[in-house]
């Protein structure tokens, strides 16, 4: 894999950055690719726009940020509106089924709509786990990362008393794609 550019976007507090870090850490552990993970967020702890970027490559990664994304996760209407123009037409888009698509012309070849927030709220019981549901779905869609690797990193990176809950959310997202 030459250079694969992933962008995870949403509102501050939704956990897009944590999901990006977990993905990058699992890729590091698997040790097949180089990885660079960056983020941008506002000074506020909740709300505002927030995004994480993960670049995966067999080669040395010079520019560490997304130029034209291969994969976009958008958790909010405004994140989709902002980042859809920078998604490759040949790329993939993962969105919550309720996210409003304004610019239909810009949609890429592959659009995956899943009830991210509904799964987190109704199935897992905590809407705050939406980022792990999305990460589970992404893991099922990516062929370069193993489910087990991500689970190990989740267990290490989330607060101890929430490991089970996060793993449950991750599995739910994963299963939704696989089944």
């Amino acid at each position, binding site marked *: 894999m030459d250079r694969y550019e992933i962008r995870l976007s949403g509102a501050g507090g939704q956990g897009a950055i944590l999901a990006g870090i977990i993905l990058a850490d699992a890729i590091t552990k698997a040790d097949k690719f180089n990885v660079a993970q960056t983020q941008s967020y506002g000074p506020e702890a909740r709300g505002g726009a927030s995004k994480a970027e993960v670049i995966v490559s067999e080669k040395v990664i*010079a520019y560490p940020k997304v*130029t034209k994304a291969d994969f976009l996760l958008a958790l909010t209407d405004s994140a989709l509106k902002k980042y859809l123009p920078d998604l490759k037409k040949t790329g993939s888009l993962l969105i919550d089924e309720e996210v409003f698509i304004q610019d239909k012309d810009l949609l890429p070849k592959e659009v995956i709509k899943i009830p991210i927030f509904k799964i987190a709220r109704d199935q897992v019981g905590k809407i705050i786990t939406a980022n792990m549901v999305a990460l589970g779905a992404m893991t099922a869609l990516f062929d370069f990362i193993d489910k087990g690797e991500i689970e190990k990193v989740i267990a290490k990176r989330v607060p101890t008393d929430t490991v089970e809950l996060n793993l449950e959310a991750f599995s739910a997202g994963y299963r939704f794609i696989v089944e």
Partner: protein
Amino acid sequence: MKTEKVLLQGNEAVVEGALLAGVRFFAGYPITPSSEIAEGFSRRLPLVGGKFIQMEDELGAMAATIGGSLAGLKSITATSGPGFSLKQENLGFGIMIEAPCVVVNVSRTGPSTGLPTSPSQGDIMQTRWGTHGDHPAVVLAPSTVSNTVDLTIKAFNFSEMLRTPVILMLDEVVGHMRENVLLPAADAIEIIDRKRPDGNKANFKPYEVKGHDHVPPMPDYGQGYHYHTTGLYHDETGFPRGKSEDAEKLMLRLMHKVDYYRDEITLVEKKYLSDAKIAVLAYGSVARSAESAVEMARNNGIKVGFMQIKTVWPFPEKEVAELAQKVDKIIVPELNYGQYVREVTRAAGGMAEVIPLNRFAGQLISPATIKEMIEEED
């Protein structure tokens, strides 16, 4: 020896590099985007018998860092633009009394509180001239996470060797970025410790130079050497006499010690320059955009090369003059309104046309923007 790669943030890399270099004291006041450095030291230093202290503000943090150094410990502080401004007076004190230490500035967009979570290189001249009065400056600017580990170790080595504060200038991109890196093994890195006096305590003069390098040996406070420090110009005894001859002698020595080690501390990377007609010169995170842009342009057949300045101060006069002799044009992309480019223009001395490329609104310059300028100038 660790052979497993780890996912590390630039700020965490400062902590890892410093620990490998033997740091035992951190004094600071957390500020975005540098806070992970303070966090990291608060967890790690107690485990190796070191001390972490959160001070009341950045002035106190800089003072405490100098105090830690005088007590004999490798000491470090970390901040961002607003805090870096506050550290300037005591930084000058550290230069004057020759206290080796490392000051990290993870720069963000200013002036004032600016854009706290966005990158900038607007502090580049402040790292050179931030404190008042004539003074030498040694400043390193990494561009990758693994580079940050190496340059943090070097920052400590240079500060111990020169007996002067060394500034490590990251920017928000480098500080917050995570990359997979292989940490160097502790036995595979070179560590330099300050020269200490030979034990003759009776006639000890704290600022007496014996070697050729203009650097006086430095005792630790509490070892029994009588030792006075002052921000006033002083003679070899460390006491002020208010005399011009002392001022001249000390200023020359402060400058000459950095000149003496100039070749050793000048770190510059060159790539694709053998056939280049145009060069892109960059430092910090922008060096990564520049390298990508140069590679893209070369793929399109443009003869363009790349120079990354890792030791931004003292300015690499010789290296930039040689570059200017070689190429027709030098493009200098920077995350500011145009600062370092003026030094490049001066050092190029009319031998090459020097072209600025500036972005100052808190976003990293993209490779495409630099490539466009390369194509325009080709």
